[in-house]
């Protein structure tokens, strides 16, 4: 691995002042399961790494009556098995359980998963293959699709669609603190709105009114290790009759450079009776959204078909769960 200077921070202000003061490229070190492989293949570089694992307030799951607060350094293993999350947040548990392998989930963190770099092979291996610096590496070309004016890699974050479906908000710590819904966090594949001296402080997930149910489904080539080709997170809040939909949230990953809400599908479901027919019409609308590119992993049309199929299954699952909860 390329050499770097190693630092440890014991509080958020200490980490931020380190990042402000250090020369060159500084990166946060959380689980390391994304950063180290990408540093080994020289896809990403760093002069300094600031280890955040000594900051106690960044890890763990806390809950009160209205909101669940997940620290960004909470391991995916903990989220996958978390009892305090319960049935209402099953989309998050399923998303965490779907990432990589058990060994990796023990070390990987949810904050790191949200901030991961693009998984485009032309980005990861550009130094090995002697390709010019691409958009994702602050260059001005795309090695995957000739002539593309911006990065064409699909959104990598496996967890993001689940968090978007659950209406999660990020609290960003930095010189100035700010907050935003998860769907506003991403600029393009692997690029987020936060700067080098900022970090995710907390992920706050509102406790939805009952009865509600959520689900997350992902398609990848192998069940373990592989990133999602397409992933879908949904949450349905039902009216007290248990049939009509009060609020629907459908979020898609792998269908464009950033994960996003399928608003047309959501609008179709809101206020409607949830039936096989409304679910399949909403799934159809979801599959038409986004801007999927063909890449090494899947063609454009495969991504659309997967998005439709996964949305249909996830909605049916979330509906069953919501009824069971009510």
């Amino acid at each position, binding site marked *: 691995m390329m050499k770097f200077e*190693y630092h440890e921070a014991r509080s958020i202000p200490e980490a931020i002042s380190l990042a402000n003061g250090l020369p060159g490229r500084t990166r946060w*070190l959380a689980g390391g399961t994304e950063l180290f492989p990408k540093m080994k293949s020289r896809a990403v570089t760093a002069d300094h790494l600031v*280890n955040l694992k000594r900051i106690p307030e960044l890890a763990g799951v806390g809950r009160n009556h209205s909101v669940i607060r997940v620290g960004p350094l909470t391991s995916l293993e903990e989220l996958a098995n978390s009892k305090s999350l319960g049935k209402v947040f099953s989309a998050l548990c399923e998303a965490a359980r779907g990432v990589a392998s*058990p060994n*990796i989930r*023990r070390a990987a963190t949810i904050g790191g998963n949200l901030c991961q770099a693009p998984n485009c092979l032309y980005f990861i291996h550009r130094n090995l293959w002697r390709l010019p610096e691409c958009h994702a590496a602050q260059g001005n070309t795309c090695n995957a699709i000739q002539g593309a004016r911006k990065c064409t890699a699909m959104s990598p974050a496996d967890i993001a669609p689940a968090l978007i479906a659950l209406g999660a908000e990020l609290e960003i710590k930095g010189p100035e603190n700010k907050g935003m819904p998860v769907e506003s966090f991403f600029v393009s594949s692997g690029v987020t709105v936060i700067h080098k001296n900022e970090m995710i402080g907390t992920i706050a997930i509102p406790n939805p009114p009952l009865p509600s149910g959520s689900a997350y489904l992902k398609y990848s080539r192998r069940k*373990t*290790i592989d990133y999602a080709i397409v992933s879908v997170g949904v949450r349905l809040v039902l009216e007290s009759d248990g049939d009509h939909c009060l609020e629907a949230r459908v979020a898609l990953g792998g269908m464009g450079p950033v994960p996003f809400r399928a608003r047309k599908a959501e609008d179709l479901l809101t206020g409607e009776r949830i039936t096989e027919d409304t679910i399949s019409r909403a799934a159809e609308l979801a599959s038409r959204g986004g801007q999927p590119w063909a890449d090494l992993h899947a063609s454009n049309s495969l991504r659309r078909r997967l998005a439709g199929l996964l949305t249909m299954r996830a909605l049916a699952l979330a509906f069953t769960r919501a009824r069971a909860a009510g």
Partner: protein
Amino acid sequence: MKEMNMSKHEIYLRVNGREHRLSIDSHLTLLDVIRDKIGLTGTKRGCDLGECGACTVLIDGKPYNACLITPMDVQGKEIVTIEGLAQDGKLHPIQEAFIEQGAIQCGFCTPGMVLGAKALLDEDPSPSEEKIKEALSGNLCRCTGYTSIVRAIQSLGGKRKDGREG
């Protein structure tokens, strides 16, 4: 030269019950340190990217990929490598079972498989086939087709440390 000195770190690792005080460069992973500094080469370097599980070690009883961990994070923790399983020249029952069931061919994945199996069996003495496959899903084997590995672990199912069934 000043920079070179800055990146050295004094660390203290406990591997297989033995204590090691080392001065290392910060860019070394736990795998680099175990193999190249401590000299325990039973932990294998496969992909070095976290995809194959050949470098699996136990940290406080749980399996991790050593190639993705900085040694700074495991100071003071109990690290067990494959060399730590055999006691007084006698193989661990899991190692015996792997030999008995022919779960080793080239042997490159075996240290990771055995340690993954140990963590699983410590938690659940008679795991189902599904649970074994899930627990070892991050450990790749290109020879055995996994059947004999699963069989070896299942053959230990229900056996307690005192040797009695149940």
